[in-house]
């Protein structure tokens, strides 16, 4: 049998490199977050859903439906932009589940799981890197909106606070999709189920229209839908009249999502075989 040797001798392999202390939880999470950022740089197409998609939504809703809904596109833009910002970021959180599922399918997670690192680091790292996508989405929505004539009456601080609130919500919601990503068989299945959940969350809300014309049963859902509270809170902040109640409800929604799904996700991750 062939015992070909490398052209260059294998020298440094045999040099013993002692194993240092394992990295801290934070360091491991940041390193794995860095990996996801590198992947965004390598495959920028994965930013389509936070760049082109919101532009199309804003143009479509404002110019196509705006006149019919509000009688005036400028007025409708003022109403719908905070909603589309929320919708875009919330939809972007779905990607977390798909990318996790793809990673597991490719086996790279087995490598991570065989390392002496804080176990949820891979999850936290991925979720942190996804925050970058959310920021891109928020900036694109605001830039396009303002170019079209959207004027937030609230100050810069209020707008930043509104964006932060949306980010926190998306981070919380992404645990749900991370859970689906870990438990479903294929990336396609994750996408299918997530989209199914996404439509009632984003469309059956006050994102696009005032719910007062909706039938009672639907309004009942819209009223408890955390996305509605988030949209109202963001509208409030951007128009310079923040509503403590809605901000509170949105944050409570976040807390509930994390409290339920973070432990479930970490458990699914530990058990993943």
């Amino acid at each position: 049998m062939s015992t070909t040797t490398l052209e260059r001798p294998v020298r440094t392999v045999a040099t013993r490199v002692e194993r240092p202390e394992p990295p801290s939880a934070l360091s491991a999470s940041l390193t794995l977050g860095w990996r996801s950022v590198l992947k965004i740089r390598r495959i920028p197409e994965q930013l389509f859903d936070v760049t082109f998609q919101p532009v199309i939504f804003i143009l479509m809703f404002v110019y196509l439906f705006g006149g019919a809904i509000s009688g005036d596109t400028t007025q409708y833009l003022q109403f719908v932009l905070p909603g589309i910002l929320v919708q875009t970021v919330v939809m972007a959180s779905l990607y977390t589940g798909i990318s996790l599922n793809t990673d597991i399918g490719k086996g790279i997670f087995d490598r991570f799981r065989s390392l002496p690192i804080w176990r949820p680091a891979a999850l936290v790292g991925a979720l942190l890197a996804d925050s970058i996508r959310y920021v891109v989405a928020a900036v694109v929505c605001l830039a396009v909106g303002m170019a079209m004539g959207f004027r937030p009456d609230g100050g810069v601080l209020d707008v930043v606070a509104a964006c932060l609130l949306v980010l926190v919500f998306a981070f919380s919601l992404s645990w749900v999709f991370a859970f689906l990503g870990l438990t479903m068989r294929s990336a396609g299945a994750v996408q299918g189920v997530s989209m199914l959940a996404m439509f009632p969350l984003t469309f059956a809300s006050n994102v696009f229209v005032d719910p007062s014309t909706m039938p009672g049963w639907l309004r009942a859902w819209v009223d408890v839908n955390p996305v509605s509270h988030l949209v109202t809170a963001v509208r409030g902040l951007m128009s310079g009249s923040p509503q403590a109640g809605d901000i509170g409800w949105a944050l409570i929604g976040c807390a509930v999502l994390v409290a339920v799904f973070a432990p479930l996700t970490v458990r699914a991750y530990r058990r993943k075989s």
Partner: protein
Amino acid sequence: MPTLAIEANGLVKSFGENRAVDGVDLAVRAGTVYGVLGPNGAGKTTTVRMLTTLLRPDGGSARVLGRDVVDDADEVRRFIGLTGQYASVDEDLTGTENLVLQSRLVGLSRTRSKQRAAELLESFDLTEAANRPVKHFSGGMRRRIDLAASIVVTPDVLFLDEPTTGLDPRSRGQVWDIVRDLVAGGTTVLLTTQYLDEADQLADRIAVIDRGTVIAEGTSADLKASVGRNSLHLRLADDTQRDLAERLVAQMLDTTPHRTTEAAVITAPVADPDAVADLMIRLRAEGVGIDEIGVQRPSLDEVFLTLTGHAADDTPHDTERSAA
């Protein structure tokens, strides 16, 4: 360091109805190469996944360097390296990025990680591909980067799950050299393989595994001896003398020689090696010229066939992919 680097007692893992691993026992001495040999679906990958803490056994226990793979999983992870179909690198990242990532995750500093990545790329002959995404690597390069990623710090125990499956002979040779080099540095290696010659070449001891259980264990010589029957391998100087030579072999060894695809080569089972000496004298007396003669022990292929009743590549069961 305990003398046993890996010990497994009655490991069991089922996936639904399918008992993928059904009572596997292993004892691997520190500083040696241990081969786990078996066809697809025999339970090799599942066994490795349990030993590397990725999969919880349904029954039995296993210790790596004296630490239990379930109770002291975190401890075990500090001492092992793993390379396999399911523990690979990130295809979208470059060779350098993957190795830096891996180095950072085992706790090396930023500077040291970059340095170590460059060192490994250099010694694995991957420097030119350092800034190319791994998905554009050839099969051999891909396996070398996988291996490099599992030795950014020197593991005490390295698990290699089918390290050369699908590689061309030259790339296989390169992987073998790397393994030998690591063992020379004191690392214990457990490798799974479907290739009998790979186990023969690398492993100090071999466990033959089929349908989730170890059906034979020992050195490659032990396994061959357990099958018995040496065989004569005779190459004639002149293949026109074949008929005469065959007749003499049949007569002197009291057996039926096998016809081979090469006209000048005759093989025959040998019960008594002394008879071969008599045969050689007789061949000389009859004027039959010999190019090459030897008595060989059976190949591991023959061992596998004898032990399992089916050939190594004859796999009627599910693959491990679907089982896992």
